[in-house]
């Protein structure tokens, strides 16, 4: 199998408009949560989200357009022949809201495949690509699928692009399910009571060695292993015993040809919901056989960016390995018992070459990615 190198990353989040800005603020323990003004929140159980304030709708187009533009305008020249895989849960769902309310709007942004169409046209790729829809593990599985194409020799270069926006559609849904925290999300905290939504986008350009050298890209890191598994338990709640996540992590470690002892840190899904966080801690306890491996979540800073979360976390995970520093879990005050000695409200220095990044979502899906530092 070919090695899979990450050669370029771009990100836009509520915290920052670049990898560097987002990283600095994550390390500084900042949060992007602000009151939502895009729609009325009076009847929802929170008014907070990690909004990107300067993206505004225009000409009846969805908010996905200015957000896509922010990423694509930063991209380096993407080689011809690059395959594209996008990830989103709801694409331009804000346009469905307008259409259902009888307002003028284009329907095309609503289709999930619109993201790959728009991105591929903007950067001039022949491949119109596919979109992966796997709830909150969408981007993680898109990265895995892209890595698999390169590893198997079916592609030399793959661009993964992930995006989700804050919309009333999604905000109202999580509120109706009582999954949103009234206050800011508190991942892995004893007093956590739900998630806080966020929006963002990221791109991850992956290549085999020959393509990276030929196109003179730097090597930022390696995607060494990946795995996905369903817990076959409930469509909106995780299996309490973490069986699906344990299975996904096992597959990713096996593919990376390492053991759990090689993992320096874990960037967890860590949504801040009672059941997700406990499921993850249960799975980590099993996988790491009681070792207090450093664990963090970005969702107290960036919010839960749904289908984009896994991609944004891969981008930031490469920074974790590069800097050998795990940013704090913002919102954490009193760690859940199983998380004691693992999570921290301050940055933690780490030592090692491998980071595990995990995500889980509706339908019982769990996904894991093993990232390796640099070219090591």
């Amino acid at each position, binding site marked *: 199998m070919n090695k899979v190198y990450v050669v370029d990353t771009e990100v836009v989040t509520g915290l920052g408009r670049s990898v560097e800005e987002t990283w600095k603020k994550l390390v500084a323990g900042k949060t992007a949560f602000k009151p939502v003004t895009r729609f*009325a929140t*009076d*009847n*929802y159980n929170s008014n907070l989200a990690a909004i990107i304030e300067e993206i505004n709708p225009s000409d009846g187009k969805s908010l996905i357009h200015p957000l896509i533009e922010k990423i694509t305008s930063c991209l380096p020249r993407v080689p011809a022949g690059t395959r594209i895989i996008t990830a989103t*849960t*709801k694409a331009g*769902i804000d346009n*469905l809201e307008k*259409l*259902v*309310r009888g307002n003028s709007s284009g*329907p*095309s942004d*609503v*289709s*999930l*495949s*619109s993201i*790959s169409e728009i991105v591929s046209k903007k950067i001039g790729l022949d491949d*119109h*690509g*596919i*979109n*992966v*829809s*796997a*709830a909150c*593990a969408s981007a993680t*599985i898109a990265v895995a*699928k892209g890595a*698999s*194409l390169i*590893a*198997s020799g*079916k592609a030399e270069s793959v661009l993964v692009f992930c995006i989700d926006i804050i919309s*009333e*559609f999604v905000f*109202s*849904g*999580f*509120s*109706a*399910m009582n999954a949103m925290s009234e206050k800011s999300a508190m991942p892995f905290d004893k007093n956590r009571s739900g998630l806080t939504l966020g929006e963002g986008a990221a791109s991850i350009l992956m290549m085999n060695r020959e393509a990276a050298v030929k196109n003179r890209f730097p090597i930022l890191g390696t995607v060494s292993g990946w*795995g*996905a*598994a*369903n*817990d*076959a*338990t409930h*469509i*909106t709640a995780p299996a309490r015993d973490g069986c*699906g996540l344990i*299975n996904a992590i096992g*597959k990713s470690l096996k593919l990376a040809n390492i053991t759990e002892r090689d993992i320096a840190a874990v960037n967890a899904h860590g949504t801040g919901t009672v059941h997700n966080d406990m499921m993850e801690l249960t799975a980590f306890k099993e996988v790491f056989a009681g070792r207090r491996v450093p664990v963090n979540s970005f969702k107290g800073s960036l919010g839960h960016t749904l289908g984009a979360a896994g991609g944004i976390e891969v981008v930031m995970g490469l920074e974790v390995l590069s800097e050998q520093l795990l940013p704090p879990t913002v919102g954490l005050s009193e760690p859940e018992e199983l998380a004691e000695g693992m999570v921290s409200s301050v940055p933690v220095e780490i030592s090692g070459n491998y980071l595990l990044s995990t995500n889980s979502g*509706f*339908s*019982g*899906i769990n*996904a894991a990615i093993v990232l390796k530092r640099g070219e090591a």
Partner: protein
Amino acid sequence: MTAYITGVGWVSASGMGYGSNYANFSMKKGPLPDISRKDVFTEPYKAFGRMDKFSKIGLTAIAFALRDAGLEKWSEKRNIGTIASTFYGCLNTDISYYDTVIPEEGALSSPGLFAYTLPNCFLGEACICFGMTGTGFVINEQSSYGLKGLETVIESIEYMEHEIMLCGFCETACPSNFEVVRETDEDISGSLFFVLEKKISDNRENYGEVNCNENNDVLFNNTVVSDLCMLAEKCLENNSD
């Protein structure tokens, strides 16, 4: 890499069924049947009634494909993966959900409907119903129905992630004011799923072999197929011999 097709199941405007009752097979567009639990399962299955139509037709075709392959019954969870293609996904459910948001500015938003506003939710239902713990996701593509999903399934079987996988598509009719021009002329509603297996024992029946050539064409018994409907027709032709 070769995989064997051991099951085919479908729901369409012409009816629903699986391999052995192939006579009504057609995926032409039209009103889809309303499916009740008794159409699919002999035993009570409480969750079926609460599902949206998209999930019901997807789950039904998966159930029939597994039945056709002799894999419907299970006692221990199994590493079976599923990849489904869709263009419109659960758009009708999205609209039904948002209709509950508008009247009282969100105060009456339906959590039950929101749970089905992701196109991969029916895969979760299938995993629960049939004890399947493999990977599962939905592919949204502009072009021909399901071939990229099938390529992914063959690749996943080749690289040992799964020995058994389901592959197919699920599509309900698009609301008129949401119609989006597609790259393909196909206009299909319904659901069609295949069971693919890496190995089969000598005496086990199967429809034939499927693989990809170096140009990434999908071949069924060494003949190029252009979409999953054509693949089903080829499988069922063999069955009628």
